[in-house]
């Protein structure tokens, strides 16, 4: 079982390393969102600083959405999804390997770079750490929600466009909790409890997500 897990994880990481330029795609997309937002709002540092955390979060969310179609679709198109589904290893384990690889390849670079983008938007120094923490704690939840939606749409036509409609309403609570935490930090309020809430969400997502995602993959089969 663990062998299957690492075989799949290793394969996905290796594939990602082979196409290194694709790794940059979510990053420059997120940066472009930030750039366009500053152009739309104007260069005034005070206003940008107030919006910085929110804009960064939206940018991360959109970059995730863009990358998500590549989670299961290539596997479905070349038939490796069928190999996964017929493997003796339990499907939730395999799905976990895929989502972990996705998190490492897509989300982790975003998490690392997001504070950088935010400081380009004049994020106040006190919010730097809360932003990083919320991103770290909230992205597992986002990744699993995204994986479930990607699994549901993998056999559908024009799955990419559909993904936005399915995923974004589901991410509302995560976004609110994350931004609320950053705001609380700005107002000097304790952020321990909202952070704990996000952490609980991450644990719940990591424990329920694999099973839900496996069911979703099997349901969409045809």
């Amino acid at each position, binding site marked *: 079982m663990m062998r299957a897990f690492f075989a799949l994880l290793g394969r996905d990481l290796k594939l990602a390393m082979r196409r290194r330029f694709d790794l940059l795609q979510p990053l420059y997309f997120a940066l472009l969102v930030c750039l366009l937002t500053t152009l739309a709002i104007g260069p005034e540092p005070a206003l940008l600083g107030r919006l910085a955390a929110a804009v960064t979060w939206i940018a991360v969310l959109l970059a995730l959405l863009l990358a998500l179609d590549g989670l299961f679709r290539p596997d479905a198109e070349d038939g490796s999804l069928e190999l996964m589904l017929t493997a003796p290893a339990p499907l939730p384990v395999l799905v976990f390997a895929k989502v972990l690889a996705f998190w490492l390849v897509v989300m982790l670079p975003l998490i690392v770079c997001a504070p950088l983008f935010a400081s380009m938007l004049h994020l106040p120094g006190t919010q730097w750490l809360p932003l990083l923490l919320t991103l770290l704690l909230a992205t597992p939840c986002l990744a699993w929600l995204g994986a*479930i*939606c990607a699994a*549901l*749409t993998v*056999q*559908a*036509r*024009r*799955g990419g466009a*559909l993904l936005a*409609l*399915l995923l*974004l*309403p*589901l991410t*509302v*609570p995560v976004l*609110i*909790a994350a*931004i*609320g935490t950053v*705001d*609380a930090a700005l107002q000097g309020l304790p952020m321990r409890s909202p952070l704990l809430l996000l952490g609980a969400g991450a644990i719940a997502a990591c424990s329920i997500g694999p099973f*839900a995602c496996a*069911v*979703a993959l099997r*349901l*969409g*089969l*045809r």
Partner: protein
Amino acid sequence: MKLPLWFHRLGSPPTFYRFAGRLMPWLYVLAAGLTLWGLYGGLVLAPPDYQQSDAFRIIYVHVPAAWMSMAGYGLMAVCAFIALVWRMKLAETMVLTAAPIGAAFTLMTLVTGSIWGRPMWGTWWDWDPRLTSELVLFFLYLGVIALAQAFEDRRAGARAACFLALVGIVNVPIVHFAVKWWNSLHQGSTIRVFSESTIHSSMKWPLLVLAIAAYLYFIASWMARTRVALLEQHAGTDWVQALTQGDRHG
């Protein structure tokens, strides 16, 4: 887990078709009657609100629609659960036919709420927690409809939509509380339109009557849509052929 036999029998398409066909007209008539009674009570008998004068009368369409939009999602999710656990085809179909009706009620809630907001808050739209979570609900309905339609294979699409409906039902209360919390964090400009004490009983009973009417209407419309969907899915089977032959001659 085993389902009772009558449930299975009702799950057979021709039986459901006949059963719904017999029940539907009664539901429509009852819903229409209750609507007229409730509207008479709300628009004519109820006194104007001391704060909002007559503008509050929008409540008689807004609140039943809002209740129904949420109850409709609940009914749809129950159906989705039955469809996925007992692999019941009729339940799959009913999830897909409930979604547009629920979306219609949600749209009604949004539009009437917006119209109500204009005289009350001075704005067509306010990021009030209730309006916001209602909007999210609308997108959840749209997601179910869009997902079901995006599949070449009807059943695969139906099953995926059922699963999404179940994910959504977990999400609905979370969204509601999250948005409420978010709103308090931002100290929104919400004016409490009604606190419990301001509702007078002469204003209240039409509301309940209309809510029941909305419920009955939802069931009736659901049956009508499911009947049509069954006709479409089973075109060519003997019972549909027999039915349509009957239509042609009779």
